[in-house]
């Protein structure tokens, strides 16, 4: 009896310890965002004279308005709005195209294996490990030859190429867990390659689509190196614009505007994750445990 009571206390103590640890971690990770938010709501005098962690005395949305539509970035003073639009124009098609290609690839690599398909798949996976910097030069030549350099199409192309390796991996691992007997049954029922794909596999693919969309969206939206290398002044994505805004030396530092712009820039990926985070975890787990 005494032993069990002792164990109970111990297990409760370890519980408390775990919660404290988790709380500290949460504070540690959330503190920068907290500072960003409160700074973006202060006016510039308060920032200069006040405490970094202090709550704003008067809340002002002026920095947000300025960051969105008025701040000077490069030659124009239109805020980060046009660049935000650029990012959407790049991200949406790139995410969709790479997910669709990845789904088809994964379908082939799991259910229509051909001689050498395993080797082919391994080679494709190399794409996950190639650092961005290595492909900068050959990639710029390629999109130059295709005549789409400096345009959003060039960036879409680059991101689709890069993303397909990951989406293929995700979809392939997901489809491997779907019994091949299902495919065989459909074959005997007379369904062909594409019909099996969209009638049998696609309807059960929602979790893995969510994983791929979130993954790809985060990657492409937050990507900076390709964005700055392969874009022209009017096709730059929001990450590049944010850099230009923060690093511009011509005017006084407006920390509140910088913070607001940064928050606007990360908002889409943050919101996407909050909305579909449970699918993300579910989808990543699916196929891992049969």
């Amino acid at each position, binding site marked *: 009896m005494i032993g069990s009571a002792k164990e109970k206390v111990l297990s409760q103590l370890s519980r408390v310890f775990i919660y404290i640890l988790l709380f500290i971690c949460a504070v540690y990770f959330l503190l920068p965002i907290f500072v960003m938010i409160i700074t973006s709501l202060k006016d510039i005098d308060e920032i200069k004279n006040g405490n970094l962690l202090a709550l704003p005395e008067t809340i002002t949305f002026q920095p947000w308005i300025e960051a969105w539509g008025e701040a000077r970035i490069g030659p124009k003073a239109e805020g980060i709005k046009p660049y935000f639009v650029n990012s959407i124009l790049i991200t949406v098609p790139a995410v969709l195209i790479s997910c669709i290609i990845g789904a088809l690839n994964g379908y082939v690599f799991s259910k229509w294996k051909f001689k050498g398909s395993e080797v082919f798949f391994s080679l494709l996976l190399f794409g996950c490990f190639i650092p961005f910097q290595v492909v900068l030069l050959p990639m710029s030549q390629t999109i130059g030859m295709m005549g789409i350099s400096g345009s959003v199409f060039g960036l879409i192309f680059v991101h689709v190429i890069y993303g397909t390796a990951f989406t293929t991996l995700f979809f392939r691992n997901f489809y491997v867990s779907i*019994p091949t*007997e*299902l495919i*065989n*049954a*459909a*074959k*005997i*029922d*007379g*369904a062909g390659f594409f*019909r099996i794909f969209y*009638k*049998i596999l696609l*309807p*059960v693919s929602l979790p893995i689509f969510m994983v791929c969309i979130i993954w790809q969206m985060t990657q492409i939206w937050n990507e900076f190196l390709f964005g700055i290398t392969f874009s022209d002044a009017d096709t730059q994505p929001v990450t590049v614009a944010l850099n230009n805004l923060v690093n511009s030396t011509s005017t006084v530092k407006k920390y509140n505007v910088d913070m607001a712009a940064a928050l606007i820039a990360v908002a889409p990926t943050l919101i996407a994750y909050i909305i579909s985070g449970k699918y993300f975890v579910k989808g990543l787990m699916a196929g891992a445990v049969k």
Partner: protein
Amino acid sequence: MKSLKIKDLYKSYDDTEVLKGINVDLDAGEFLVLVGPSGCGKSTLLSTIAGLEEINKGSITLGENDITHASPKDRGLAMVFQSYALYPNMTVRENIEFGLKISKYSKEEIEQRVQSAVEILHMEALLDRKPGQLSGGQRQRVAIARSISREPDMYLFDEPLSNLDAELRVKMRAEIKKLHKRVKKTIVYVTHDQVEAMTLADKIAIMNKGTIQQFDSPSNVYENPCNLFTAGFIGSPSMNFIDVIIKKENDKFCVDFKNESGVINTIVLDGEFEDLDKYVGKTVIAGLRPEHIQNGFRDASVANQLQELDAKINIQELTGSDVFLYITLNDTDVIARVSPSGAKDDGENITLKVWAKKIIFFDKETENRIR
């Protein structure tokens, strides 16, 4: 109704040969069971018949049609899978309709076929459910209904009952048998369960290591196994195998069974043998089914073919209708199937009767039956 002919079929994955010269000749409307231990190639053979696997050599003919290289949907067959393979996102009705819609039947035709299929299997109430809401037995019914609705020339079953619990398995087994009686179509059925094989089949093909060991009717497979593997595979408890030396006395073959206490029982063989002469003085494997060692045979007509065998009971297992006695002959554990009446205790001596005519022999080297 169509006959199935498979000639010299070979199939290999990379360097591993999984099917080595399969020959099958099945009459129209017959029920063939492919049975064998796991990895013997029975499921692969079924897949090649279905057209899901390409073959390396040989031919498959269904009725008059050579279907060796036809695509699965053009072979005129339907298949029921071990995992049921129901499309999880579709209702029962949609599952059954799926293939029919692809084949572009008219709406009325599809409706009529769905109705008659679900009527046969008594599952009208389940039409609008999804597979996830059904029990294992119901899912298997849907899978069978789906195959019936295709009105195929031949049915293929790939271990359809092995995911069901024991009670349901017996029920579904009877239902498949009834279905065969009703549709009178050719069926190829894969199982590793010898009871399923014996109860369902018109013909059994016992497979091992990529070859068909014996292709015969269930009773022949049981009574006249062609080699050691077949003899040991069919029957439960399985056939006793005892090393014996063939002797010849007074122009009659006989063998000695030495029991645990060293008493030698000489059994005179009264079966017909052609080649046993060559084995006189040599060690062979004697095969004797448990039910051919008894304490009393019900069939009086065999009384004059029985010979006595003294043995000591090591242990015994009561199954209700029978008692399995474990005895030792020639240092080998042997099971005798006796009736519960006149039971004795463990360790006691008992005089059993052997139906000598039923003893068969196998070559120790080739493991083939000695005729």
